[in-house]
């Protein structure tokens, strides 16, 4: 088989753009630390394990020339990916776990809907269809198989305000049930991503159905991204996300490094 001339290869053009800086890589990932909050469940229920690290050796009697650690965490710890199998609505779907999702799905464009002002004003801000329609009026229709990312600037908050637990539970922005269903059925989105600890609003337990982002997205084989950072550095459209989770057999999700490729206008 003959290779195409280098200059005309799409990947070669892409590599040259990367090297030349016209395509930038933006890291949307929080550093995994023991202190990073995990989702809070009622204490009698099973809990998501926080990130923990134990040193195996550090150039010492446990291993003289090498440093390494063992770590442990849950599938939904830190910046992480939700597979359809995560939710009961997606449990019967084909290719619904992190190890069976087609790898091509780990590369997809992103639309970033900026709700940062609204979220700052109201921690319980709920994304609605009209809000998205207004965004589309400005930036164009959301293309099929694109991520929709909710920019709230939540990632800039210190931990206590990030989780924002009040006496009636967590308060953080998220989508209304109708808009999630609409995004899936009418925009054929790839998945839904947020800066907050879940794809759903802090108070989404009280929605109908509860946790609609999980309910509709996973029920239709779509994905979730949570605890994203740096969404404020993305353009409303045009970014390409690289979101490959760990290949865990029958995994419901996985911590991952989320990278956004952004083209700088010449």
């Amino acid at each position, binding site marked *: 088989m003959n290779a195409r001339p280098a200059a005309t290869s799409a990947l070669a053009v892409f590599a040259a753009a990367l090297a030349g800086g016209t395509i930038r890589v933006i890291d949307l990932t929080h550093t995994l630390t*023991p*202190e990073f*909050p995990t989702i809070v469940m009622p204490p009698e229920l099973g*809990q998501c394990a926080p990130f*923990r690290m134990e040193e195996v050796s550090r150039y010492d009697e446990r291993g003289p020339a090498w440093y390494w650690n063992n770590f442990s965490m849950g599938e939904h710890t830190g910046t992480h990916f939700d597979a359809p199998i995560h939710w009961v609505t997606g449990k019967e779907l084909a290719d619904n776990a992190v190890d069976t999702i087609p790898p091509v799905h780990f590369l997809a464009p992103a639309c970033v809907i900026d709700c940062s002002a609204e979220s700052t004003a109201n921690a319980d801000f709920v994304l609605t269809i009209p809000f998205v329609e207004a965004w589309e009026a400005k930036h164009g229709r959301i293309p099929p198989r694109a991520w929709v990312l909710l920019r709230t600037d939540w990632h800039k908050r210190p*931990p206590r305000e990030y989780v924002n*637990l009040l006496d009636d539970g967590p308060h953080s922005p998220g989508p209304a049930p109708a808009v999630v269903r609409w995004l899936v059925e009418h925009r054929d989105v790839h998945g839904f991503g947020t800066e907050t600890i879940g794809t759903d609003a802090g108070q989404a337990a009280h929605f109908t159905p509860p946790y609609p982002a999980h309910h509709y997205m996973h029920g239709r084989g779509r994905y979730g991204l949570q605890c994203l950072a740096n969404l404020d550095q993305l353009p409303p459209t045009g970014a390409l996300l690289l979101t490959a989770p760990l290949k865990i057999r029958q995994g419901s999700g996985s911590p991952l490094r989320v990278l956004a490729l952004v083209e700088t206008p010449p």
Partner: protein
Amino acid sequence: MTEPLIRPRRKDPLRKTREPLLPQGIRSRTAFGLTAAAAEGRFALQVCTDCGCILYPPRDACSRCLSGRVPFRDVPSGGVVLAETTIRTSTDVYFRERTPWRIGTVALDCGPSFVAHLHGDVAEGARVRMTLRLDKSGNAVAIAMPDTPTEHQEDDVQLRELTCDPKFRRVLITDGRNATGQAMVRAIATAGASIVFVGLADPWKPFPGEAALREIPGVEVVSLDITDSQSVADTAGEIAHRVDILVNTTEHPRIGGIMGRHGLTVAREEMDIRYFGLLRLAQHFGPTMRARGADGVNAAAAFVNLLSVHALMNWPLYGAFSAAEAACLSATQALRAELRSGGVKVLNMFAGPLDTEWFQSVPPPKLSPAALATATVDALRKGIEDAYVGDVAQDIRARLDVQPKALERELGA
């Protein structure tokens, strides 16, 4: 009257820390009967089953009738000091740096004479109450206490060698989030601790009583998550050299047995929070505490574990929890041996179900966190090693003595 202790000056950080030394800890096997009593704060001597003669020093036959049945029993502790002396020179390195040191011959009302340490408020000819205490070597010694308590008697310099009194000590309460931790902070602060460090994990997670906790005088909140090795290492790096008493209040009681638990997530959490948590605290705070066992008035004194009494015998309703507690108990025995060279005691407070949400369905009697905290302060003041707090704990203890197999069956019924 005992001269009241004065708050120690802040230590000159350039001064050499006095190395911990121990009084001689070698004992005959029989003499450990005294240690067993002292560990629980009881005064027990051998009592001949056949003739009733009360014996001391410990021996292997009755010195009146030669019976071999000479078990340790609680006996009356009253007596009179027949003679006293102040030792001014000693061949032993531990006592050599603690002279002058008073001892005396006490004629016990119940029979034998007992050469014992003398409390400073006890004079020759006085009536005394004998108590068995654990010395820095972890072995029982008797100290003759005033027959009626005297002012500041707990501050006596010889007595304080035998106790872990929180007064003017700096105490770390590892978890201030739960009811027990908060009760402990209050009790320890009231007992005169100079600083109460209060550990908090997940500071982003608010909790009831948080504001009040932070306002208790002497409280310094520190970030501490005993499930996170790095957190324990970091906090120990900051404060371990100032922790004289460590009280591990981190708890994780969960209902459920072994077989029906549906996986290991909860059991793993139990082991991580309780057993591995204990190991992390031991590894990061233990060595510094051990090195500071003779560091003046506020020398490191005690590592306190709050254990379920079901560490001693599994309670199948809380079967996995009991097992984790048993693992902790075993680890504390190792820790006790490891801290002994510093003269630092390991106190195990055994409690039955606490009156908290995690034992909601358990019928009374249940132990209030405040009662557990009060008992802990009391145990520290006495320097005892094993305390059975509340009705359930004492019941389990007594039933274990009588017939452990019956207890096993009855707890599982």
